[in-house]
């Protein structure tokens, strides 16, 4: 593993929100993220950091199958946040920290600010290097509206979590909003150190023969290449509105070119989810491609190209 010094001089290394990554590719939440072994496999596949499966206060079995259905250039999933609860998952985080040589970001969800805070605190105590808030859950006290769709709820959750932990706090935004910059601003003003943009687009699939929705939960989240143009626009919007706030791009990254597009839009790093199905070493391939690109374009570091698409 590279020491701090070589990380600094490594053209692919990036730092944001107090985290330093050897390269700007991160495993997205929910992908192979249950166990330390699987996180480690992805780290060995070249990820600069990993985000765990989203974990809540109590165990959840998730929805029954079908939980995943193919869409044109993408997938729709409705797993239903299956997770063993933070009690059990803390062990996995602790174990991860003994085997992984990259930062472990714990993805946390809840149905109230307090729940988020409890889970985040436990995750940090177990060794998580940072916390990412998955705010695509409905707010229990206000049925229907998702926390990530309301600046008020979001702000409350972020503030409460921020007060509970000392590690970097990343907020993963939903693209299912009228103006993502409003939510981004609310999160940052409430104390978020960085933003991940974006989670999945609300979608569904219907089968004409059986005349039914395919997913057992009816609705799910669209990911993969189909959402890239939307995710890219979200990152661009946030970078334009909020300037220096570090943004992690997420949605449809499958190769170095996609990653570069996100950097140019304003992302400091990218998360990769759906493309991991094809190749758990996609991180390596993306990093290599980005490195070649930087060399060809005569840039000394990936940091130098962040936001360049905004140049007039």
């Amino acid at each position, binding site marked *: 593993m590279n020491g701090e010094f070589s990380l600094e001089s490594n053209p692919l290394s990036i730092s944001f929100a107090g985290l330093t990554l050897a390269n700007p590719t991160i495993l997205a939440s*929910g992908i192979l993220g249950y166990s330390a072994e699987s996180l480690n496999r992805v780290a060995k596949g070249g990820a600069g950091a990993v985000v765990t499966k989203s974990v809540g206060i109590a165990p959840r079995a998730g929805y029954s199958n079908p*939980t995943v259905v193919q869409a044109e250039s993408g997938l729709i999933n409705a797993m239903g946040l299956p997770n063993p609860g933070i009690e059990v998952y803390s062990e996995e985080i602790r174990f991860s920290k003994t085997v992984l040589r990259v930062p472990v970001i714990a993805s946390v969800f809840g149905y109230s600010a307090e729940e988020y805070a409890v889970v985040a605190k436990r995750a940090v105590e177990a060794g998580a290097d940072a916390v990412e808030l998955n705010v695509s859950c409905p707010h229990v006290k206000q049925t229907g509206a998702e926390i990530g769709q309301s600046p008020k709820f979001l702000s409350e959750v972020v503030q409460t979590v921020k007060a509970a932990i000392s590690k970097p706090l990343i907020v993963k935004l939903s693209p299912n909003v009228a103006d993502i910059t409003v939510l981004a601003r609310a999160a940052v003003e409430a104390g978020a150190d960085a933003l991940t943009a974006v989670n999945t687009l609300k979608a569904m699939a219907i089968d004409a023969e059986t005349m039914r929705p395919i997913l057992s939960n009816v609705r799910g989240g669209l990911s993969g290449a189909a959402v890239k143009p939307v995710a890219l626009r979200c990152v661009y919007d946030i970078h334009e509105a909020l300037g220096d706030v570090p943004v992690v791009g997420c949605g449809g990254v499958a190769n170095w070119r996609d990653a570069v597009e996100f950097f140019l839009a304003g992302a400091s790093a990218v998360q990769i989810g759906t493309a991991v199905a094809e190749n758990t070493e996609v991180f390596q391939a993306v990093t290599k491609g980005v490195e070649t690109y930087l060399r060809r374009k005569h840039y000394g570091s990936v940091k130098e190209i962040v936001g360049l698409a905004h140049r007039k």
Partner: protein
Amino acid sequence: MRISQIVRIRTESPTVKTFMLTDRLCAKAKPGQFLMLWIPGVDEIPLSVLDAGDNLVSVSVKAVGDATRHLHALEAGATVGVRGPFGNCFTESRGRVLLVGGGTGTAPLLFLAKQLAAKTERLSFVEGAKTKDELLFVHELGGICNEKSLITTTEDGTAGLQCLVTQPLASLLDKEKFDMIYTCGPEIMVKKIFEMTEKRKLPIEASLERLMRCGIGLCGSCMIGKYRVCRDGPVFNAAQLREVQEELGISKLGFDGSRIPL
């Protein structure tokens, strides 16, 4: 998700039925691969391919719970959904091979045996079940193996030897030399067989089962150690089985992602 029709249903035992489905892609499946079968409005479950060809694919299903019982209640002509074929397949071995099947685990091995029959020097099959009624595909296997090379066991002695499937194995492995052992069945059985092959330094390929959701290597529901059973498996070789020994036959991930004892 592709929509498929059940074209034929065959009763194999009091608890097992075979379903023949139309599906162009799964009709190209290789022994060891599985498909995800959607029973509309009920569930989607992984099933090993029993046979494939001519735009048709067959699966043998034991009724154990909600989805499998609903499936058993369907009639020919019913519409189901299919994804796949998924996963890797058994490798072809040409010398002397031994196949050991337990319960519906016999299904992929029958498919494999059919493929290997003409190509191998000798093919032996050991099949075990609780009772005579549950010994699957005995007739088909009899057509592939000669009498001596097909051994059946039942726990209640209603057919074949009265013992566990692992019992005749020990002497078989000591007496004869095998170039490859293939197995599929309850994981406790697989684990015991793996211990036997390890002791004798024999090559083995075992097909494992884990909870499947995405089937494409994404969600992590099916991990055993660092492997995705749906994508890196379901067939694992000795070196891989060694790597997952801490979980093999011992624990798996439950629906909520926590480790549960097997």
